[in-house]
């Protein structure tokens, strides 16, 4: 299952807001001169910043709706793992194209009986130069109701 690709601009204000929400006072997220002095083109994205894109960039609640489409219930599922593979820096001013797809989906017996659903969603991000910058993988685990 593949979801529609979407394109979006990396914005300084959103990076600052994200860093602040994590109490991160590193000047690299607010001081462009400092960011350039250590080699970045502009203000760089924090390591887990891409995780926010799937939530609200294509449309509000993209990830929640995507889970619904796959028949995954928010009430009985948990976010089990997240993996971020960094291929090149993401900086303010970049225009990224994101493509999310279900990479893997399998069922198995849970430890306490009952079936568990394991769904891995992979998102790949490519910048305006066509350069792949990041690959994220998220594992969702759902307990199937014992009906």
């Amino acid at each position: 299952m593949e979801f529609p690709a979407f394109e979006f601009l990396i914005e300084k204000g959103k990076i600052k807001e994200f860093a602040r929400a994590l109490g991160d006072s590193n000047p690299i997220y607010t001081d462009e001169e400092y960011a350039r002095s250590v080699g970045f083109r502009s203000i760089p994205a924090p390591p887990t910043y891409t995780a926010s894109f799937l939530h609200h960039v294509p449309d509000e609640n993209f990830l929640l709706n995507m889970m619904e489409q796959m028949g995954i219930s928010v009430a009985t599922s948990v976010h089990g793992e997240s993996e971020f593979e960094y291929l090149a820096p993401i900086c303010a001013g970049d225009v990224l194209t994101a493509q999310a797809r279900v990479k893997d989906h399998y069922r198995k017996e849970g430890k306490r009986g009952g079936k568990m659903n394991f769904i891995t969603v992979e998102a790949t991000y490519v910048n305006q130069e066509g350069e792949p910058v990041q690959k994220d993988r998220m594992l969702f685990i759902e307990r199937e109701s014992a009906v």
Partner: protein
Amino acid sequence: MAEKKLYYEDVSEGDESPELSLEVTRTHIVKYAGAGGDFNPIHTDEAFATSIGLPSVFAMGLMQGGYLARALTDWVGLGTLRLYKIRFTGQVWPGETIICKAIVKSKYEEHGEKRIDCELSVTNPDGDSKITGTAVVALPSKE
């Protein structure tokens, strides 16, 4: 392009990052929801959370995952991460204190870079696990 905070030559297996600790409040969760765009009601809507049998709202795994990444980049510098992989092993409830840290497991050269593998953890003060993880970090060299 990376901050030079920690050099490969200054790191040994078993070295630990400074700990980052924080008492998580509902305000932290709401701020992260706004900044990160995660409006799943189990994290922000107490009435919804209790209606499905939870004691209260709880933090998004990627919120403490973000604090853990901050603990790591405060130590190794931004731009050095090659892989950051975390597993959410326990929920974090409002009022709980979390402790984030990284330990160096190995040093090696790969793809022309001097790299370290770190083991990552978020726990509460009782030692209950909230996140376990690994990171691959490429460090600058003094050579």
